[in-house]
């Protein structure tokens, strides 16, 4: 199997005024296509930073990122945006739904920025059906429970049919029952749709259900 994400010797240093914070220090890792990987580690050890670099939202200070065998170093903003749009789907701890759009429109966002996308509304409804929310189509985000909001966010992450889903503590703001529902959903996406999933979590139980756990400590991988 080929690795779909390959990070080599990644370092990330945040420069704020006089203080240099080293968030990641020479991290290398590979993720295979179809894998469900969880990343664990104490707070502030660089997990989110790692995920953002994988998601092309942030650039490493040094090291190389390859997505689907392509080195993203030196890619234009436009090419990066396109890669994000077509290959990656994000799920955030605090959902990040857009309050002024109803849930169908929220789910449609990745398609709005995809060149030549058709049937946007139908695809959005299908994605919502897949996460079990087909009865809530006209609702606004503020009318949803946390679990429902996160399911909308997952629908948004999969609507564009990306091969990779990056989830930063997707159950972090949910109670255990809703968290379990979300985990079921992610497993379904991984098993039945073959999505590669990288998930940051603090929950050891959830991590144990995944194919592989990567442990971080203080900006480094723990072998």
């Amino acid at each position, binding site marked *: 199997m080929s690795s779909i994400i390959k990070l080599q010797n990644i370092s990330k240093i945040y420069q704020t005024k006089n203080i240099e914070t080293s968030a990641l220090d020479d991290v290398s890792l590979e993720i295979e296509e179809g894998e469900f990987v969880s990343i664990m580690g104490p707070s502030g050890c660089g997990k989110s930073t790692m995920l953002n670099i994988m998601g092309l939202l942030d650039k490493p200070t040094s090291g190389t990122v390859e997505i689907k065998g392509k080195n993203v170093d030196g890619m234009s903003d436009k090419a990066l945006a396109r890669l994000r749009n077509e290959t990656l789907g994000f799920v955030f701890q*605090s959902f*990040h739904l857009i309050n*002024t759009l109803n849930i169908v429109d929220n789910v449609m966002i990745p398609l709005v*920025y995809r060149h030549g996308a058709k049937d946007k509304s139908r695809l959005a409804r299908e994605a919502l059906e897949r996460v079990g929310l087909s009865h809530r189509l006209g609702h606004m985000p503020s009318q949803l429970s946390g679990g429902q909001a996160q399911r909308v966010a997952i629908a948004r992450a999969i609507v564009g049919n990306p091969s990779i889903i990056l989830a930063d503590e997707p159950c972090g703001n949910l109670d255990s029952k809703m968290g379990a529902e979300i985990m079921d959903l992610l497993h379904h996406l991984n098993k039945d749709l073959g999505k590669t999933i990288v998930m940051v979590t603090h929950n050891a139980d959830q991590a144990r259900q995944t194919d592989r756990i990567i442990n971080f400590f203080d900006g480094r991988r723990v072998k």
Partner: protein
Amino acid sequence: MKIIFKNLWHRRAQNGWLFAELIIVTFLAWEIIDPVAVSISDRNEPLGYDADRLVNLSFISLPENAAEYKAEEADSASNVANSAKIARYLESLPEVESACFAGSNPILNSSSNYWDQLRSGNPAVDTLVKNIISVQYEPDSKFFETMGIESAPGSPSPEELSRLNIGPREIIVTEDYARLFWPDENALGKKFITVSRDGKDTTYTTIVGVVKGLRYQSILRSRCLIFKQDRYFDYNTDFDEFAYTVRLAPGVDPKQFVADFGPERRNKLSIGNFRLNKIAEQQALIDNVEFTYGIASNRKIKMILCSFFLINLILGTVGCFWLQTRRRVSETGVLRSFGALKSQIIKMLIGESVVLATTAFIIGDLLYLQYALKEGFDLGFVNNMSLNVIDNWVSNFWEHFGIVSLIVYALIIICVIIGTLLPALKLSRINPVDALRDE
């Protein structure tokens, strides 16, 4: 595009204020921009003659107690002969194409003028009586060609008109004036009726020439004038002032001509008891009239008011959108993480304000239309309303509404775009990771 409307709709509570503001802004912008547009248009409306090639020279006659006074040259015949010498000298100058005796004042754009009342001899418009400015010009003075007045089709040429010996019952009129009485016919040879006060005597005045419309003063919008001959020295036995207008050759700068008019030339123009008093280009005269009537300062005040208003509009929108966009940082983070480009974010935000401003403009514009239907538009300087206004966009209601609407819309949109661009640029520059962290 759809996202723009949805965003606006769901943000209607926040946008309501801006929307209401923009409606009021449209209304006020009309009120302020309309007079400026009319004023600028009036100024740029062609005068109808070659003002930019004319220079006026005014002469005075020496008083009898002056040392150089020559009693033997004080009679009417010498005055006429000496005035003709002045004309010949002026025309001998290389920069000068022709010179025209102008009576006591430069003929066009003088601050004093005569008014006449004429009634049409056309039975169809018989009751029409129109006040009209009457221009008195000197016979045999090359008046029409010097001023650059063009003759109407079918009428004698300017040179021929100047040479015509016109009797007291004959006049030359502008096309625009003639059209009021004979809308569909050539007015050449037609007659006006003048009825005496007691109503007993009826006299006829025949049109012997028709010229293209021109404006007597730049502050008047009317192109209606009549021309009568009047032999200045016959009527003014004890005059002390008269003027010449010269037409410069093509390419000669009137300002330069005036500046270079040195002592040698002045000396040459000291003929008989006449002395050159002042020399000034026609434009200086025009500016002076505008100044006298307060048109120039009025225009300046309006322009200042207008720019002040527009700057405020920009600042207002910047402020409004600034507050809004600050709350939308995480939204842009989300959009960016799902593949939106910086430019798409900017376009979306600008699109929102353009849609908002356009809708508000349409409402404000229609409101102003209601007002204008009642009150009418600003028609510029009052004098223009008293008399046969020329037929341009200013006096045509719908054309006026359309043109000023477009100007107002364009200015509002430009201000709103500038006002949105600043916050939008800032927003689009925030790195998506930082934007997502913002809660």
